[in-house]
C-alpha cells in the first residue's frame, strides 16, 4: 500500500472503480490538499455518468491519511471482485439479473453468442443465465461493440454481477 499521494491516473482509477460498482453511493477521499468527492444517483445505471469530480493536481507534500487508499478495497462487495476494468463514458455494463450460471453459448460445443469485438444491436443475445434449468437470454439493450467479457463460461454469477462491457455506437 503506497502512502504517497495518488497521482492523476490513480484518482481516475478510483473514479472508474466507483462507477463500476453497485454499492458505492458516495466516496470522499482527502489526501493532503487533494480532495476527491463522488456522489451517485440511487438507480444503478448501466450508463455511467461523467465523473463528477475532477482531481486537483497532486500536491508536492501532503499529510498521510492512512485509511484513504484502503477505503475502496474495503467498500468492495465481499461477494465478487468487480474486475479491475474501468468504464469509459460511452461504455455500458451488462449485469446478471439473477443469481445463476453464466453460459457463453446456446449449448455445449456451439459457438459463443458473442466475442470481444462483435457488433451487437439492442436485441442481440449476449449470453444465458440459468436458474434451475430455466435458461434466460440476456440481451444487449444497446447498439454497440462488445469490448470486454468479464466472466467465464459456466461460471456462477450473483445478482447484479457485471458480465460484459459494451461500447455504444455514436
Amino acid at each position, binding site marked *: 500500500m503506497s502512502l504517497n499521494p495518488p497521482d492523476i491516473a490513480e484518482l481516475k482509477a478510483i473514479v472508474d472503480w466507483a462507477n463500476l460498482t453497485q454499492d458505492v453511493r458516495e466516496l470522499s477521499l482527502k489526501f493532503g490538499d487533494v480532495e476527491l468527492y463522488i456522489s451517485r444517483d440511487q438507480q444503478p445505471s448501466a450508463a455511467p455518468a461523467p465523473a463528477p469530480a475532477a482531481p486537483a493536481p497532486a500536491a508536492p507534500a501532503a499529510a498521510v491519511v492512512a485509511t484513504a487508499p484502503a477505503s475502496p478495497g474495503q467498500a468492495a462487495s*465481499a*461477494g465478487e471482485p468487480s474486475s479491475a476494468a474501468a468504464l469509459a463514458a460511452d461504455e455500458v455494463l451488462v449485469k446478471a439479473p439473477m*443469481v445463476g*450460471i453464466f453460459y457463453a453459448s446456446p449449448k455445449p460445443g456451439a459457438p459463443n453468442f458473442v466475442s470481444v469485438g462483435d457488433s451487437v444491436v439492442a436485441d442481440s443475445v449476449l449470453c444465458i443465465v440459468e436458474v*434451475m434449468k430455466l435458461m434466460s437470454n440476456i440481451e444487449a439493450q444497446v447498439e454497440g461493440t462488445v469490448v470486454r467479457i468479464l466472466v467465464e463460461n459456466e461460471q456462477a*454469477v*450473483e445478482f*447484479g454481477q457485471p458480465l460484459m462491457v459494451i461500447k455504444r455506437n455514436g
Partner: protein
Amino acid sequence: MGEPLKSVLIANRGEIALRVIRACKELGIRSVLAYSEGDADSLPVKLADQAVCIGPAQAKSSYRDPRAVISAALAYKVDAIHPGYGFLSENADFVALCEKEQVGFVGPSAEVIRRMGDKIEAKKIARRAGVPTVPGSIGAIAEFSEALAVASEVGYPLLIKAAAGGGGRGMRVVETAQTLEKDLAEIMSEAEVAFGDPSVYIERYLTDIRHIEIQVISDGHTVLHLGERDCTAQRRNQKLIEESPSPVLDAELRQGLAEAAVALCKEVGYKNAGTVEFVFDNIERTYYFIEMNTRIQVEHPVSEMVSGIDLIKLQLQIAGGLPIGLTQDDVVITGHAIECRINAEDPENNFAPGPGKITTFRAPGGFGVRMDTHIETGYTIPPFYDSMIGKLICWGKDRDEAIARTLRALDELVVDGVTTTAPFHKKILQTQKFASGDFNTAFVAELLERERSAGEPTLQPSR
C-alpha cells in the same frame, strides 16, 4: 449421504445468519451466505467464507424467493441450504423443490413440514401419539347438532370460532351451559351470513396460561429433548423473554411434557431440531399441544446455555446424515438461562419500529453473558426486515443469578442512535411478579396497562 457437509448456503440474514456462519466455521464447513442488496454491508457478509447476492432488498425477491435461493445453491455448488428461521424455513414447497433439485436442506422433509404445518393434521398426529391437545373439535363442524354435542363435552368457558373467520372476527366465549345453544346458533347463523359458511371450531377457552415449549433434536432414529423453555413473557403474542427451566414445572410435569414431545416426533418421523409448543394451564396445572415448529427457533440459545449442546452444529451434523451421537442421559440441564430479544422499537411509542444508524454499540460481556447480534458501531438497520437487533442470553447457577446477571448486562449494553426495547426488558425483570415466577401470558399487557392508567411514563429516560 452419511458424511459431514462440506459447504452450506445460508439463506438468511441478521443474527441467525451469523450464528450459522459461526457453527460452520467451527466445523470446517465452507459457509456461503445468500444475501440481499439490503444487507450488503452487514456483518454476516463480512464474516462468511463467501457471500453471494441473490436479489434486491425486498425479501420476496431474495430471502423469500425459492428459485433465487436454490439457484444460488446450485450455481455455487453447496451440499445443503440452512434456512435459519422465518423466510423459507417452514415453506414445504421450497423444501420439495430442494428435494427435486437434489440440494440438501437442513431441516425435515417437505412432507413432515407440510403435515406439521397443517394445524388440524398436526392435532390429529398429536392425538395419535397420545399427546394431549386443547379439548375441542379436531376440525370444522358444519352441523348444529354435532357442534352442540362437541361443545357440551368440551367444558366451560369454551370458545366458538367461525371456521371461515379470522383475526378475531366470528369468535365468542361461552361462559356457562345456559347460553350454549343460543350462542352456538347465533354464531353459526352469523358465520353463514358473513362468510357463506356456518362451520365452527370449538375448544376449551383457557384464560390463565403459560407458553411452554420443548426443544427436540432428532436424527430420524434417536429423538432427544433438551428440556423446556418458558416463553410466557409475551406482548401481543410476540415473545419478549424466554427462559429455561420454567419456574412453574415440577419434575413430573417436566417429564410428561418432554415425553409427549418425543412421542410426537417419533409418530411423525421427525428429523432436525424442532420445537413442540404447549399451553400450560395454570389453574389445572396441565398442558396441551398447540403446534410444532419444524426449524431452529430464535430462542434456541436458551437451551444451548443450560445444556452445553450446540444445536446448530447438531443440525448440520444430522443434515449430513450422521447420527446425533448422544443419548438422553448425555443431556444434562445445569443452571438457568434467560433470553431478552432486543428490538429497535420504541416502548414509549407503542413499540413502533425505528430503523436507523447505530452510532455506538457496546455489547455487554463477562461470565455467563452471550449476545448474539449482527449489529456493530456504524451499522444502519435496514427498514426492510424485522426489528430484532440482537438477543441477550445470560446464564446463572439459578434463576436469581440469571436475572441479576441479565440486569447487569442490560445496564452495560449501549445501542446509541436508535431506540431499543432494552430498558423495557429491565423493567419487566425488575418486577416482583417476574422475580416470583408466578405470572401468565397477560403479565406484560397488564404491566403496560397499569402504567398507562397510573399516568406514569412507561420508562425513565435512559440511553
